[in-house]
């Protein structure tokens, strides 16, 4: 029989493990910081129309040709476009423009029916297109969007931020589809937790539905009131 000279705590391992875990946490957190999407830039023109600030955008990068399959699915596709004027180093918009486009491909008529709601026609106006390239050109065009008086720009630096969502699903709708169907964990009985080093969150069937909404965010280069060209 031998006696182990080390203390109980040493018998349970070394002090290096927490440090290694901390290092791993830090490395993973650092790598995650690089995985955030960086907003792209759209071809755009910012100009003064009288005393108003107007922006023209080419939204084509948000509507690639591959979108044809989705928009031809015979069901209503909703496209939400939000254009905001924000200070370069802040998030709070100073002006916002919103447009909602509903696209419905009629499988028997073989046409794209479109309803557009925007500040010019809040109740909606309808268009019909026979070909996808016509529809795409229509969707990509965002001309002379009014973003308020130029005087509001002051001496600051601003950017135009554009957010385009395909088939956004409202929170209310998601709530309606949720059900508590998670299965109880095999490990824990009667609510007694079981300690796992890694997998500790079973009962996985109740998963937030990802309806696959397609979101594009674009951000213009910064500009000042002086740089806005008068038309």
């Amino acid at each position, binding site marked *: 029989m031998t006696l182990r000279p*080390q203390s109980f705590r040493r018998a*349970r391992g070394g002090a290096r493990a927490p440090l290694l875990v901390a290092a791993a946490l830090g490395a993973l957190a650092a790598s995650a910081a690089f995985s955030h999407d960086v907003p792209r830039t759209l071809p755009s023109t910012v100009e003064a129309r009288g005393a108003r600030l107007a922006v023209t955008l080419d939204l084509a990068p948000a509507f690639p040709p591959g979108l044809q399959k989705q928009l031809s699915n015979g069901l209503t596709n909703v496209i939400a476009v939000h254009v905001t004027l924000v200070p370069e180093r802040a998030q709070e918009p100073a002006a916002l423009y919103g447009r909602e486009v509903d696209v419905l491909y009629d*499988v028997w008529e073989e046409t794209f029916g479109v309803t557009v709601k925007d500040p010019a026609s809040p109740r909606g106006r309808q268009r019909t297109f026979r070909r996808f390239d016509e529809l795409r050109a229509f969707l990509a065009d965002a001309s002379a969007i009014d973003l308020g008086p130029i005087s509001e720009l002051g001496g600051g630096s601003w950017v135009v931020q554009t957010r385009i969502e395909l088939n956004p699903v409202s929170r209310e709708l998601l709530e309606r589809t949720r059900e508590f169907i998670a299965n109880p964990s095999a490990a824990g009985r*009667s609510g007694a937790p079981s300690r796992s080093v890694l997998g500790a969150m079973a*009962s996985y069937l109740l998963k937030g*539905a990802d309806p696959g909404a397609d979101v594009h965010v674009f951000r213009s280069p910064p500009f000042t009131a002086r740089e806005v060209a008068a038309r």
Partner: protein
Amino acid sequence: MPAPALAAMVVALLASAQGDAANEPSSPVTRRYVIERIQLDGLMRTRTSEVRRHLSTAEGELLDDKSVLLSRLRLLQLGWFSRVETRVEKGSERGLVVLVFDFTERNTLIVSDLVIGSTGPQPLYGGLGLSEGNFLGRGLSLSGTLVYGGPPADRPLDPARFALRGAFFAPDVTFAGLPLVFGLSALGLRGEEFTCSDPECRPFRGHYGDAPRLRYDRIGGELTVGLRPGPFERLLAGYRLERVSATSIPGATPGVDTGPLPSIRAGSSLLSALTATYDRDTRNELFFPTDGTRLALNIVFGSQALGGDYEYSRYLLQLESDHALPHGHALKLLGAAGAVQGDAPFFERFYPADFAYFSLGPALGRALELNFSTDARYDAYLAMLGAEYGVPLWSSGRFFHRGYLAIGARWLFSAARARAGRTPASRTPFSGDLALRLDTPVGSFNVSMGYALDNFL
């Protein structure tokens, strides 16, 4: 334009846009097509009958975009599919259409538990739990977990310590129009609890083979049936039966440094108990919830009237409340309260380390009800309060889909008797944690400082 006016305009525009999205999507063209057929493509494992049960539309009905969208979201919610796409095709004649659901099935076999640990009494132990969430393609759950420690330290000829649990669960059974749930689980376990007078067994100076202990075996199972009163609720009733056998093994020097045995009947005994559980879960998701609450109340009533040897009752209430914070952060508030009355076996009492992030002193959170530490103190009263702050790190990784950093703190009180104290080490009621939580296709993982402190320090 003054800032308040602009802000009002922004709010109005956003509200208008969101309102439109929330309500029925307005069709740009009036059409009245009838669904001639519903076609389900891409199903490899899942039965079509199971999918059809969750559809909100049917053949012969008018095509309604909203019902199609609801069906799609419900199917995604099941967790069986990574993608559900819908489209409409021409039917056999004008006015008829075929509604097509195109599925990409996801992996439903996940790692539910992964245990690795080391203590003086058990230099290395580990375990694995697997759970299949769509067993037989019918939405049934089948899971199994094994934790294995092997023979205790310094006693190579002793039987191995292990715990094995299997469970079957049917979460959505319709019988006579009633939404029911059904479950069956089985447990086989051989464990040991040290019976030193000192929880750390210090007189044995790390030579744990000389320490006195209680060796016990449990084998049994539980049958559960229940109702789903609402979409977020479960009401379960069950019956549990276990055969328990326990033997006291004296230390190298009998009678020296031997404390009381944990509460259990020597020899062979039977545990027979009724169980009742109310579970209400409105959290918006499991991995990184930002909204909703979870309430679980569990009551166990063991009695000789049921043919068992233990007369006791056990109550455990667990609460969780999740809140969204600015910048996508989240706050989770936690609470638990429990009490045990009567002659409950020790494993039906509360082991405080199970409810803490880590424990000062020798106690260590158990793995599948196996205690690998020297501390065999089980308590009759428990109260826990905690908070956890979550910082999302990323949300679009390939294998590590999502990740967030969790910073938590817990306060824990437990006592063997009302107003009874503990040793100075275990009386420290606070613990904290810094953890990285990862969401992957094979399960959610938790890389935790608290766990590392407990198991390796």
